[in-house]
């Protein structure tokens, strides 16, 4: 039976992923900032699947609290087999581009907070020589764009961090997977749908499938791989003018 810690559990993508793992019999520790909501989600998983789901709170930017939080979660689960990092925010990009404090908040919520928690989990899993980490990045990290480069750079940094960690963890038999997510129909994109937007359940299915087959880096949905492949090839001077 898998014992999983899910961070950013109030994301609908996390909800669907949690349901997939719970259906397979995993027991879960769900966490985000909003305890009342996490508790509702935990009840939902238990009612629908019969799996054990407990809830807790953490804030990605409150680093000093992470170690205690992590220990408590592992203790409640009775061990740890995997961690899923689903937290992240777009923040107010326009404001962040002129206000360093806001820019740093976006970095903390998407990158440094993740580094802190992933490091704790990696240390634990490395010692036990098994387990996995799934972290949700974004195609926005593939290329800096005027529209969202603060958020994009945090996701790019996260991807690089995970790439290195993956190499090191492979020696301990720990599976580290980076998800490069395209647009998903969540509160983050509400009102900004495009024909490429997919439902959170579909995104979760792809992520789950990729994890099952042991993928290391996966674009979700798959078509973002060729799209970003081309976008990355466009020379800087032209890219600036096309304004994508």
């Amino acid at each position, binding site marked *: 039976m898998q014992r999983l810690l899910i961070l950013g559990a109030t994301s609908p993508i996390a909800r669907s992923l949690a349901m997939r793992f719970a259906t397979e019999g995993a027991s879960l520790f769900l966490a985000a900032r909003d305890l009342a909501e996490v508790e509702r989600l935990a009840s939902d998983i238990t009612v629908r699947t019969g799996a054990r789901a407990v809830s807790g709170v953490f804030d990605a930017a409150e680093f000093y609290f992470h170690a205690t939080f992590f220990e408590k979660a592992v203790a409640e689960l009775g061990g740890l087999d995997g961690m899923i990092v689903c937290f992240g925010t777009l923040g107010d990009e326009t404001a962040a581009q002129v206000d360093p404090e806001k820019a740093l908040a976006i970095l903390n919520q998407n990158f440094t907070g993740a580094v802190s928690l992933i490091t704790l989990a990696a240390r634990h899993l490395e010692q036990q020589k098994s387990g996995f980490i799934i972290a949700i990045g974004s195609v926005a990290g593939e290329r800096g764009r005027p529209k969202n480069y603060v958020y994009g750079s945090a996701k790019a940094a996260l991807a690089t961090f995970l790439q290195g960690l993956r190499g090191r963890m492979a020696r301990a038999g720990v599976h580290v997977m980076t998800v490069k997510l395209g647009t998903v129909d969540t509160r983050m994109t509400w*009102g900004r749908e495009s024909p490429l937007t997919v439902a959170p359940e579909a995104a979760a299915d792809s992520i789950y499938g990729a994890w099952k087959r042991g993928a290391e880096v996966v674009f979700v949905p798959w078509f973002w791989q060729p799209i970003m492949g081309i976008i990355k090839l466009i020379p800087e001077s032209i890219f600036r003018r096309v304004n994508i």
Partner: protein
Amino acid sequence: MPLPRRGVLTGWGSFPIAESDIYRPEKIAELAAVVTSNSTSVIARGAGRAYGDAALNGGNRVVDMQRLSRMLAFDSESGLLRCEAGVTIGEIIDVFLRRGFFPPVVPGTQFVTLGGSVAADVHGKSHHRDSSLGNHVTSIDLMLASGEVRRCSREENSDLFWATVGGMGLTGTILEVELRLRRVESAWFDGEISMAANIDEAIETFERTERQYGYSVAWIDCAGTRGSLGRSIVNLGNVASRQSLPPPLRQEPFKVPPRMHPTVPFNLPSFALSSLGIKTFNTAYYAMHRAGPKLFDYQTFFFPLDAIRKWNRIYGTRGFLQYQCVWPLSESRAGLIETLEAIARWGGGSFLTVLKKFGPQDGMLSFPMPGYTLALDFPITRELMEFLDRLDEMVVKRGGRVYLAKDARLRPEVFRAMYPKAGRWLEIKRGVDPENRFSSNLARRIGLPGGE
């Protein structure tokens, strides 16, 4: 406060259309922020399966409740399930049928939310035995205009409970519903198909089998006239006990054959629904059926239309209207004959015509009453509105009424004549929503609250 998306919405009949600021909260706190914000009026929307304008609020705000869909508690002893309003009937079936439980009442599609089903107080094929969904709801958590969440049940705030069941979202936003699921031994229905040569035979079949069968519905061939007026196929059934299943099914009594889900890919051109086309379809469908015993799986039995996703597109972009009415028992036969004759004379034809029998009913704005109900659907044409006004007059005269969840054109004075408890309902509405913050296209059209 979450941001809205400006968008155009319609009901399942694609008529009318309305543009609104649409919110889709994923947390209770986000919903509260939308409901209490001091701006335009607001209406909750579930899966948008009401046919007309009940879940529309043109120029105002709409709250899409589908993401608030968490199941909160289940007691397998009592069958009591508490969940958020955005959970669908289909999800309840997916989760609980294999554990031997089924929703107590289901409408003709499983793609409806619990909130929408309570707000319309939906009925199923077992109304004569089970009444409507509200009869099985034990409590509702309602978010009022002030943001306060009030629990209502038969014991606690019972007036508000009976104004909210069937209240079309106008007393507040339903957050949570607790209802009692029914224990079942299988996913199958043991029943029969009975052919009725005319309306009298159809009524006689309902009356004769009422005690024997919990579920009954008739599909009327609208091409029948004179002696064959109202000729129909009557489906009757009960949940099959495990023992009664053929041996191969007995092993896994909750497993049913998977369904293919073709989707109607685009709006069909309008000539597909000429009156000749409708009559040909009806005659052929009637001819396809034979009387006799039959074992149905629950999907075929309850949700035949769900087999084809987006089937409303067969009506093309101009949309269609459902017209469902009910007459008191004593007036039902005369009302049915009068209406079917009027349709035959008019010549427009109804694509799907469904007949059911209703039993006892509570609720202030709930549609059912003891008697027979007829559901008709018509592609929209210029003459249709006038024709339906005439049907309204005939229904009112006999003390009957029209179903709001399917309506898009009823007039305020006709509504008042059909729903005698509307006055009492309005008192309660004014008590909980004095500023009329909950409103919809339907509410304004039928004058709820009226400007007296």
